[in-house]
C-alpha cells in the first residue's frame, strides 16, 4: 500500500489570539521584505462581545489550486504531498493568481520608485522552491526549506497557542476533532477548507 500525505494548514479560531507570532515568524525565518505578508492574522468583529475571533491565513495549498490553473506562464506546481509551489524564475508578477485565490495569499513586493510589482511571493509551507535544496538561490527567493530538514513549517511550529497546525490532513483533522469534542461542540469544517479542498 502506498501512503499518501496531504499537507494542510488549520487555524483554530477558538485558540487564535491575534498575537501575530506566525506572521513575524514567517517574515523572520524567510527574511521577507516588510509589507509582504505570506501569512496574515486577522481579527473579525473586533471589540464586539461574543463575536470577536481571530484567524491566521496564508496559502491553503488547495487541491486543484486556482492559482495553478490560471497562471498564464504555468509557473505553479503541486508536490505529491499537496504543497503548492511556484517558480519565481518563470513568474511574471501578473497578479492572476491573486484574483483567482479565495484567500488573498499571493503577495507582490513593490519597487519603491515606480511601484512596479515584482514576481509573486507566497507561503511555501517552508518547503523552499524549485531551486536546488539549501542553495543560496533557494533561500533568497523562497526562504527556508524546513520540510527538507524534517522540520515543521515555522509559523505552525511557534504558534503561541497551538492554534495553527500543519501536517497531514488525517492528523490535522484528528486534532481538530479532539479539540471540538473536548469543548463539547460538534466538529465544524475548519476555516476555508470547504474551498481549499474539495
Amino acid at each position, binding site marked *: 500500500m502506498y501512503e499518501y500525505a496531504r499537507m494542510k494548514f488549520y487555524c483554530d479560531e477558538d485558540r487564535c489570539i491575534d498575537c501575530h507570532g506566525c506572521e513575524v515568524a514567517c517574515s523572520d525565518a524567510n527574511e521577507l521584505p516588510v*509589507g509582504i505578508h505570506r501569512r496574515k492574522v486577522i481579527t473579525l468583529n473586533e471589540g464586539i462581545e461574543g463575536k470577536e475571533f481571530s484567524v491566521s491565513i496564508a496559502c491553503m495549498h488547495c487541491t486543484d489550486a486556482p492559482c495553478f490553473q490560471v497562471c498564464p506562464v504555468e509557473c505553479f506546481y503541486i508536490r505529491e504531498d499537496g504543497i503548492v509551489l511556484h517558480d519565481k524564475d518563470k513568474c511574471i508578477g501578473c497578479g492572476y493568481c491573486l484574483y483567482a485565490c479565495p484567500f488573498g495569499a499571493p503577495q507582490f513586493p513593490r519597487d519603491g520608485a515606480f511601484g512596479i510589482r515584482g514576481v509573486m511571493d507566497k507561503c511555501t509551507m517552508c518547503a523552499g522552491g524549485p531551486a536546488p535544496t539549501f542553495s543560496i538561490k533557494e533561500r533568497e527567493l523562497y526562504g527556508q526549506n524546513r520540510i527538507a530538514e524534517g522540520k515543521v513549517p515555522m509559523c505552525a511550529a511557534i504558534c503561541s497557542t497551538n492554534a495553527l497546525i500543519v501536517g497531514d490532513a488525517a492528523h490535522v483533522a484528528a486534532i481538530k476533532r479532539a479539540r471540538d469534542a473536548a469543548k463539547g461542540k460538534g466538529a465544524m469544517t475548519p476555516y476555508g477548507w470547504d474551498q481549499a479542498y474539495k
Partner: protein
Amino acid sequence: MKKFLLICLNVFLYAGVVPLVEPNQAPSKGGLISPELIEAIPHWHKYGELFLYLQTHWVKLIFLIVLIAVPSVFLIHYLIIGPKIFSHKGRNFLIFPSWQRIIHWIAAAGWILLVPTGFIVIYGAFFGGGPFVRFARYLHVIGAVLFAIVVLPMTIMWLKDMLPRLWDIKWMMILGGYLVKRKQEIPAHKFNAGQKMWYWFAMFGGIIMIITGVMMYFQNFDLSKWHLGLFQIDLLRLAVIIHLTLALILVALFFTHLYMSLFAIKGSLDSMISGCKSEEELKYLHSIFYKEIIKKGEDKELSEKCPPLKED
C-alpha cells in the same frame, strides 16, 4: 540590442528592494490585509470562480480565435476584393494638422506596444514565462502610459467629428462599400461610421482599460470611502474580467484599423504621416465632407497646406 534589453530587464527586476516602513508612516491597513480579506472568502464564488472559469476555459481560446480569425477574414478580403487605390494626382487636402498626428502616433505607439505584449502575457506559457514575458508585461505598462497620456486629448480633439450622424446608418448598410470592388460615393463626413465605431471603442474602452489596468497594477488601494459595496479583491476580479473582455473587442478592432490603414486603402498610412488626403479619396470615401468643404470654399486653404504629390 540584446544587451540593452538585458540592462532594461535588470533595472526592472532589481530596481530596488521594498523600502522599510518609514517612522510613523503607517502602511495601508485597508483592503487586502484587513478583515475584508476573510470576509471576502465566501464571496469567492461570485467573481473569483467566474474569473477562474473564464481564464481556464475561454481566455486563451477566444484570443486565439481572434488572433487567427480576424486576420484571416481580412486576408480573404484582400485576395478577393483587394485594396482601394486612389489617385493622388489631383489636389491634396490637409485633413490632420500636425498636433493631431503627433497625438495619434503616440497613441499608436502605445497600442503597438500594448497589443503584442498583451498577447505575450496571455500566452506566457508558450513563451516559457520568465524574463521575456516579464519584460513584455513591463512594456505593456509603458504602452499603457503612452496611451494614457494622449487618450483624453485624442478624445476631445475628434469628439465633434465623431458624433453619430444619420448617414452613418447608410454607411453601415453598405458596410462602407468595402465589399464591392468599384468605387462609389460613400456617405461619410470626416470620419466614417467604421472609424467612429473604432473611436468610441478605443477611447472609452481604452479609458476603462486604463482604469482597470491601474487597479490591477496598484492592487491594494483604499476604496473604503467610495462605498462600492464590493470587496477590494472582488473589484480586482471584476477589473481583470472587464479588462480581458474589452481587450478582446479592442484587439479585433485594432486589427481592423491596421488592415484598413495598411492594406485596404492604399496610401492611408501616408495620409496619417503627412496629414493629407487626395481629392479622389475624399470624394469617394468621405463624400459628405468633400461636398462640405467645396461648398464652404475651404478646399483652397486646405490644399495649399498640402503640396501635390509628384506622379510617379
